[in-house]
């Protein structure tokens, strides 16, 4: 049994767990909840095995020692690790707060992300490391960054849920903010899904985003399709905006209070911030210093990490100002995670396309 077997197993487990969590919310039976947790743990254990096995396969392949061979060298592998951290974080929250309702939110993210990785054929592709990446600092940097990102992802989902629960008026700015955010996420996911179905591409993600992303919809050569895509997007926005309160009633069923969501948002950021500071910024700087003799060069990736860091510093300090607690800081936590995603994906994919130095 190789790593891909266990990857498949964990993907299925997460999707199954999602279904069981939803059933649990509907029927509120304790046994169902325990089953959901068990299936999630099975998924987690097999994913751990999968990562370990892949690590070993990679180590055998490049022959550079175990530490250097951590499977964290490309976008897909780091996505797998991110999912792993996310599930770990979720399980911790489930045990600490004795509340299973978030499972219905987290397991689909995990399942979908792994399924996405699977269709795009990443697990077979092993790339050797170029010299600059052969560094133990880099490994610590990547691992800790992703633990930080996972904590931020949790704060994002609880922050968003907080907004969904506490906003009433459709023309209130917080309501419009969350429906827009939610809509953009949904639309990007859907259009990327269509791209995948249309092109069946099995290429590196960098190439996918440059040459295929949105080509079926927003960037379609035909202006009719383009127009239809935009109109559909606007309709989706409208529907979310018009019927957003349904989501609110759904979340209210989970017996979560806004105060609890606010606390989890803060706690996740309180864990994520120091880890991201040390792992993302400091270890990244040490690595750059070892490799090139510059600990800070203001390159777009570094700068975006710093922007992310300032947004979370903003979050932590704005909580201390009267009148900011509640919706305003929840919005900041959502924006923070958008910056995380941009740091991770946008910098490589959008900004490097703008500059002719390109694919690096």
């Amino acid at each position, binding site marked *: 049994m190789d790593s891909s077997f266990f990857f498949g197993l964990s993907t299925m487990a997460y999707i199954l767990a999602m279904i069981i969590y939803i059933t649990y919310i509907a029927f509120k039976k304790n046994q169902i909840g325990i089953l959901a947790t068990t299936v999630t743990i099975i998924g987690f254990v097999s994913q751990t095995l999968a990562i370990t096995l892949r690590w070993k396969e990679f180590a055998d392949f490049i022959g550079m020692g175990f530490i250097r061979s951590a499977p964290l060298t490309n976008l897909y592998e780091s996505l797998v690790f991110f999912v792993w951290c996310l599930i770990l974080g979720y399980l911790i929250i489930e045990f600490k707060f004795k509340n299973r309702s978030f499972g219905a939110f987290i397991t689909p993210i995990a399942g979908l992300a792994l399924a996405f990785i699977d269709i795009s054929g990443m697990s077979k592709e092993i790339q050797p490391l170029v010299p600059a990446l052969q560094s133990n600092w880099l490994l610590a940097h990547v691992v800790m960054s992703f633990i930080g990102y996972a904590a931020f992802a949790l704060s994002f989902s609880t922050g968003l849920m907080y907004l969904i629960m506490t906003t009433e008026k459709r023309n209130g700015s917080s309501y419009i903010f969350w429906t827009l955010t939610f809509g953009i996420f949904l639309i990007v996911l859907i259009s990327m899904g269509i791209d995948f179905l249309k092109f069946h591409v099995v290429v590196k993600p960098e190439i996918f985003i440059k040459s295929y992303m949105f080509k079926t919809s927003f960037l379609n050569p035909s202006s009719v399709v383009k127009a239809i895509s935009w109109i559909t997007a606007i309709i989706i926005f409208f529907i979310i905006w018009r019927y957003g309160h349904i989501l609110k009633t759904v979340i209210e069923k989970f017996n979560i209070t806004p105060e609890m969501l606010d606390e989890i948002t803060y706690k996740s950021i309180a864990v994520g911030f120091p880890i991201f500071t040390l792992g993302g910024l400091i270890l990244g700087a040490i690595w750059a210093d070892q490799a090139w*003799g510059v600990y800070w060069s203001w390159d777009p990736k570094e700068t975006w990490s710093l922007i992310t860091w*300032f947004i979370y*510093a*903003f979050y932590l300090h704005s909580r201390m*100002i009267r009148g900011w607690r509640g919706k305003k800081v929840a919005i900041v936590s959502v924006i923070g995670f958008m910056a995380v995603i941009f740091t991770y994906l946008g910098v490589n994919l959008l900004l490097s396309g*703008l500059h002719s130095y390109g694919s690096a």
Partner: protein
Amino acid sequence: MEEVKNNKITDKIWDFFASVKLAIIIFALIAITSIIGTIIEQRAEPAKNIEVLTKLFGESLAPGLYTIFEKLGFMDMYRSWWFIALLVLFSVNIVICSLERLPRIWKLVKEPIGPMSEEQLKKFPIKRELILKGKIDKVRETITGAIKASGFKNYKENKEEKSLQFFAQKGNYSRLGVYLTHFSILIILAGAILGMSLGFKGYLNLPEGARSNVAFSYNGKEIPLGFNIRCDNFDVEFYGRSDMPKEYRSWLTIIENGREVLQKSIVVNDPLTYKGVTFYQSSYGLITENFNRGIFILRIVSGDSQISNLNLRAGDTFQIPGTSISGKIIDFSPALKIDRHGHAFTYANQMNNPAVYIDFSESGKQLLSGWILKRHPETWQLPGGHRVEFLDYWGVEFTGLQVRKDPGVWVVYLGCIAMSAGLFIAFFMSHRKIWVKAIEEKNNTRLLIGAFSNKSSVAYERKIDRLVSVINKRQEGGK
């Protein structure tokens, strides 16, 4: 948060700089303006950024925008006067804010705690009450044991009428974690300034065999090193048969006052430092003008295992030891490839696949000729069991070194350590206080517990519950 309003203008300025509001405004400003420098390529050729602006705003607007943006310093924005001003404002904010708050916090850290009355204890956010069997003297050990077990080593004791009170605090200094974090930012900025004013950044392209006592700054100026550095050799190792480099390695020697004082081979991620100047492996390349003047390093092994090591130049001839076979070096390619029709050609301007073309003859008679490739030992084999090992073509490559002197880097690292420690303390430690009042009632003792933590009371509450259960357990065990 806000203090009593002061009216003097100096006080107003002070309050302005001490406010957290200013802090979050600065966070937002730094975050938002920083985006500009990730879109506009910094310190680039104007043409590049005009192209970027054309993509974003169209052909007609781009040149005008470029002029405006250049005036605003966007082309090198992290060094522009307004960005520096923002950082200065940020530092002033941290300093004043800390000065404003530190005295009060220091008092909280140093302040001893005293006994509490029953009414006061009942108002605590975390409070517990329980009855123990037996008089105070009997349960005393149980209580102090439990307090010690929950980590409060230095508890104090206060005798009151018909009651006894214990109280303790720990983690006082954790209140300073936030200030350590804030201070560390100043340390890091100071380290950066130190590095910029006393250090330099440059590069040096050093051919194999050459030495230099200067490096070059990025605008081409010479920077004296104070010693000589020599590149003895440079080599690239690849993954298997691919052109994907696995390792670049330079063998360097430091020469000072005519003496070789240090030798080290460096790779990416493992630099060499001498007298504060650090050399990083960063690139490599071919020296085209030396192309035909390099030295072929060959090892000839004859069929009966006689070995000779040779250093030759193009056009030289050599003998296979113990035979009358001689070879003549005819041609060289840094990156040889054979196309579908069997023609050899050079596919890259790097030493990706060095190959030497040798004519072999025996007593003047042409024997055979062909390419011998450094990376393909199967081409080393000749008929008759002889072998020509092509080890290197030396003297035609240069190693590209980044050269840096930064006396501030240790200050920056110190700041990073302080920041990590500060954040860890700020988020994962807390200042905790506990009071346990034992009141004698007939033959029993009523315990009143009050506890306070400056953060995360959930975790502390659990800890207090554990303390209560320890007391209960000991009491049962003691009977």
